[in-house]
């Protein structure tokens, strides 16, 4: 579900790495937000595993290091085309715990099929 994004200035941007993935981090008193930066390049996402807390708004910043890529997590209703030099912010609040796959959905070459990752939403 997309989340209206109105309090950007209050959000911290540090992401906490752990267990091979990334736990979103950053909060200020009374306005907790999970911030995650993901970079796409042929043929992977960094990070490719993201852990989010259920019910807490997310700012997912997407960039690309080389060419146009897609970011598509259909079960979270997230979709973006990411162009070089044009960061994209997806703002949403995960409402359901579970594992949700994402992938590049803009065919980008021989390794395209392997360019994917997962978002784990925890209670």
């Amino acid at each position, binding site marked *: 579900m997309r989340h209206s994004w109105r309090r950007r200035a209050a959000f911290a941007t540090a992401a906490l790495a752990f267990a091979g993935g990334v736990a979103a981090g950053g909060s200020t008193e009374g306005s907790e937000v999970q911030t995650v930066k993901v970079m796409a390049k042929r043929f992977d996402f960094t990070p490719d595993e993201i852990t989010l807390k259920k019910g807490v708004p997310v700012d997912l910043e997407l960039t690309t290091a080389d060419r146009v890529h*897609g970011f598509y997590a259909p079960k979270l209703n997230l979709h973006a085309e990411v162009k070089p030099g044009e960061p994209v912010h997806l703002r949403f609040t995960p409402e359901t715990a579970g594992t949700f796959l994402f992938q590049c959905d803009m065919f980008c*070459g*021989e390794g395209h099929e*392997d360019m994917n990752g997962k978002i784990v939403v925890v209670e």
Partner: protein
Amino acid sequence: MTKGIDRRQFARLAGLGGVAFASGLFTHTGGGRAWAAGAEAAGDFYFVQMTDTHWGFSGDKINPEAKNTLRKAVAEVNGFAPAPDFIIFTGDLTHTTDDGNERRRRMTEFKSIVADLKVKTVRFMPGEHDASLDAGTAFKEMFGETHYAFDHKGVHFIALDNVSDPGASLGAAQLDWLKADLAKLDKKQPIVVFAHRPLFDLAADWDWATKDGKLAIDMLMPFEQVTVFYGHIHQEHHDMTGHIAHHAAMSLIFPQTAPHSVEKKAPVAWDPAHPFKGLGWRSVEADGKKASVTFTEHALKA
């Protein structure tokens, strides 16, 4: 073995890895009248679907016989008598490359190999490996249009292109073309649709879908007898959207894991004990007069 089942039975069996069976296609008997599509009379015939040959692929753990598999398939299809009325390749003729010259070289080699098919008419469609990196430019040079329609013995065939857009959409222009093409047809007209990707959301998070495929399916829904044959997922698969049947065919390079059977899709490793396992092609027997169709999956021989 060939099984005959009606549409209701087929719906229950969707997903069954059968060898051969009747589709939900053309179960409407229509009193046995010929479905006149164009000038040709309706009648009994069969065609062959071959798909995902990925000429140019290399990877010994996946298919150490990659340079021989297509030739082997051509020889096996040529062993069928009588010859099919036509053969259609439903995409990923070649394995992708960033080099446009190499892409054309692979397409040239592919054409040379399939030129040995003993059939009068061979039709081609692109897959994302052929067309997504150059919007279908090389494919059009080598094979012609990426979407088209034709009539054959009472059946209207439509080939859709959901790969020239790297984002896996048909696009507004093609959907307009499809709308105009369908507008000419009677609602009882048997229709066969070919596509590379599934038109429905088989596994969208595995890239096994077409973004605007539902718009095409919605256009086809008023027609009583529609069947879609596609490729892309490298395995036999059967599903229904309403009364429209969708059948994926085996690849001719490597099989893939079943939809959502594992967290991330992957090629199935080559099994030396069962070489060519999971690879094959499909024959589709249609009868415009009886409004029926039966298709058979042919596994490549070891």
